[in-house]
């Protein structure tokens, strides 16, 4: 029998708001343990949670970026469970009235068709504390770090629209891009700002059955999500084919062994409305105002890059995936750089160089203004490509302008025909065998001679003029 999988995702995204969800403590979970705490996020008696406006806005922008419909009224509930990472006994979450409903992402499926993957709803919730298990001598101890307690999260719950690991991975990549655009989160599975649980069941292909699902957790990269889903599909298929029944439970992905293993589930009770945190009410005007703060989304931007700037679809998608890259690209165009030049130099030179230095495009000392100046000198033939690459290295190390670096370090391109003419003559005199090769019909010798001339010029000769003059000279010989 051929099976197909029915997959739904539950994605937790940690918002990059400055504070926690219900207090003013810094939202920096990685700091020294228990530094970012107060009575509210230590969940002490008498503390009153206050919803952060910034976190709410970041969450709402995230919803809008995913095409979801913000609800006029949403509210927090108490999700009761007892575990040492939640010494309040309940987590504030939105179980009954979520922040948004609907939405979804269009992905390009493996066969090239467009597939719509729908979102059921998106709700806000507070993160729990972090447990650290250590040994005190020979006694195992558990420590609780409250830095993460109360950190602002949203949970994106999809419809069970996914059939393959590929679709899940494409969805997550697109989701990450769109949430980054909204400015709400970095969505890094590696850093834990995006956590994905997958609900997987299988059924005979072509039927509409909804069978018992298994929840898989603990994947820490998009790749792992794909691997874990693929493993779980084959595990369940084998299970059914062996005549066993799939039971409802939760499994953990083991990235080393590449298998899913059963885990003990936490006790979880039904949610009751929280009597303290006021309901969130969003008017049509509020929603309109939020929408106006949303930038152009990546798909629209990529389309514009193709139609306005003549890039290929692939180039446009690459440039628009990271909002910082797209913004950098557009700033270069604004400085008068040709789209293709900007695209080429950005993708092949600047981005790798920035990455090698562990910098970010948004904050690198090679600002768009300085980089544009460099590219302008290149297109004006003031420097050649070799020199431009070298000047770029200097741009990272000094605050000088590209212009100053070119002048101070003699990178300026030699385009003086008289000067180049005598340089060519000198090299031709030194390389009689290459000249003979050329005359014998070996066109490769031309390239060799150009290389020698460039070297003799210290890399500063204008290669276009060299080529032109050399061709003329060789013809006459």
């Amino acid at each position, binding site marked *: 029998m051929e099976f197909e999988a029915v997959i739904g995702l539950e994605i937790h995204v940690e918002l990059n708001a400055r504070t926690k969800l219900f207090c003013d403590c810094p939202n920096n979970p990685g700091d020294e343990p228990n530094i970012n705490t107060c009575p509210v996020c230590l969940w002490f008696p008498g503390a*009153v949670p206050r919803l952060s406006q910034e976190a709410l806005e970041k969450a709402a922008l995230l919803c809008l970026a995913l095409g979801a419909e913000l609800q006029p009224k949403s509210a927090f509930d108490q999700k*009761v469970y007892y575990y040492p990472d939640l010494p*309040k*006994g309940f987590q504030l979450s939105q179980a009954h009235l979520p922040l948004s409903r609907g939405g979804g992402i269009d992905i390009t499926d493996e066969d090239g068709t467009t597939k719509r993957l729908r979102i059921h709803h998106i709700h806000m919730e507070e993160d729990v504390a972090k447990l650290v298990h250590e040994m005190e001598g020979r006694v195992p101890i558990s420590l609780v770090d409250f830095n993460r307690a109360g950190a602002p999260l949203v949970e994106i719950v999809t419809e069970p629209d996914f059939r393959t690991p590929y679709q899940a991975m494409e969805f997550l990549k697109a989701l990450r891009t769109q949430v980054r655009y909204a400015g709400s989160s970095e969505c890094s599975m590696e850093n834990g700002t995006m956590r994905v649980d997958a609900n997987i069941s299988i059924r005979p292909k072509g039927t509409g059955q909804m069978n018992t699902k298994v929840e898989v957790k603990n994947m820490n990269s998009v790749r792992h999500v794909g691997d874990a889903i693929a493993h779980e599909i084959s595990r369940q298929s084998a299970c059914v084919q062996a005549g066993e029944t799939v039971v409802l439970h939760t499994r953990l992905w083991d990235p080393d062994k590449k298998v899913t293993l059963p885990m003990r589930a936490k006790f979880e009770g*039904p949610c009751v409305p929280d009597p303290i945190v006021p309901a969130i009410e969003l008017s049509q005007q509020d929603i309109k105002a939020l929408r106006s703060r949303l930038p152009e989304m990546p798909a629209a931007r990529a389309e514009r890059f193709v139609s306005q700037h003549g890039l290929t679809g692939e180039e446009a998608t690459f440039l628009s995936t990271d909002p910082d890259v797209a913004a950098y690209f557009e700033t270069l165009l604004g400085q008068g750089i040709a789209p293709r030049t900007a695209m080429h130099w950005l993708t092949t030179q600047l981005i790798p160089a920035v990455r090698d230095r562990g910098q970010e495009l948004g904050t690198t000392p090679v600002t768009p203004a300085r980089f544009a100046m460099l590219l302008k000198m290149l297109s004006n033939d003031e420097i050649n490509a070799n020199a431009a690459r070298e000047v770029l290295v200097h741009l990272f190390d000094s605050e000088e302008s590209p212009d100053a670096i070119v002048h101070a370090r003699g990178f300026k391109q030699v385009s003086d025909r008289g000067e180049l003419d005598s340089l060519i003559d000198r090299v031709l005199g030194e390389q009689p065998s290459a000249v003979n090769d050329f005359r014998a019909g070996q066109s490769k010798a031309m390239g060799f001679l150009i290389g020698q001339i460039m070297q003799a010029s210290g890399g500063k000769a204008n290669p276009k003029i060299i080529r032109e003059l050399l061709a003329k000279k060789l013809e006459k010989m």
Partner: protein
Amino acid sequence: MDSIFVYLNPETVSEGSGPLQGLKISIQPNISASGWPTDAGSNALINFKALVDATLVSRLREAGAVIKGLTRMSEFGFGLAGSRAGDAVSRGAVDAELVLDLMGESRLAAQRAVVCGFKPSYGLISRYGLIGLIPSMENCGVLSRSLKNIREMVKIIAGPDEKDFSLPDEKLPDFSPQKVNPKKTTVGVITETKSGLQGDQESALHAAIDELKEAGFRIKEMSFPDFSLFSLVHKIVGSVEASSCAGRYDSVRYGHRVPGAKNWNEMYLSSREEAFGLLVKSYLFQGAFFQFQRYDAYEDACRIRARLLEDMQKTMSKADFLLLPAANGVPTDATASLSGTYEQFSPTVFANVTGQPALYLPSASGSAQSGFQLAGPRLGDARLFAMGEYLLNLRQGGKS
């Protein structure tokens, strides 16, 4: 008998200066005063010291009041078993007491002490620093011999607090003295509250009706068929909130801990087993039962609550105030069962469900058996004070 105070403030002078200069006030250990033992009367919070002042405490201090200390309270302030609420005022140790009103405690304590007791509108006073049990029903009540003192205090502690966003964004009542015209004032008496009265309750209610009639007020008999459902709704919704609320008492950072447990879960279970008293434990059990086993009943109770609120709004649109009986007799430790407690508080619990202000006034005769309650519409607190002060004034031979 146990002492009235469980903690006395070593400082006897006020830190601030203002309209409450020199007023001596006691609070209870479920109202945070920075550094004071704040165990809410429960072993589950033993050794917990408040980290900050409750907003209402800091406001009282800034206004010149002296917080005298903490009076003995029932566990979590639920019911009055074991509580000495009201005694500090009746013995003259303080001018006023703050007592959280979960189901009528401030009004019943006032009845016991033969003083005035006031439960403000829900949302009028910041919850910041209050360790409650039933967040949607409780509010900080005030007891004093002088209703004017209560009004002055409520005026100081009411109003928006940047530390508590749960306060609704509503116009505050004007607490300055107001005139009352009895001829233009209708006082409703709910028929359903008149039946089933016991002992002195009935005669006290009739005496109150007579007193109001004599003062020239219009008495209007009104029907509120579902009045008895207030107790039921409070019992179900309140216990679910309490069960959720008290889930945090895990003996880890404070509170009574049973030693020798093998793991966290065992420590949690055995510590909670020992920490809570019988009454609170049965209340938490009940809440857990409704939350985990009978969630549908809880949802029904929430729906009935919404309907009761509407009914009360309709009722309050036909009368300026309601006159209601007080409790039957004064609470003793013998009523420390859940059903006994609800029985005791059946006349007062409505105001906790609806969030409307309610006032206990002792009778002119000065007996604990013969007072009555007045209630106003939500946020009608100032009018309710005016009404109460008018009546007390009349008794002293004053003129309107």
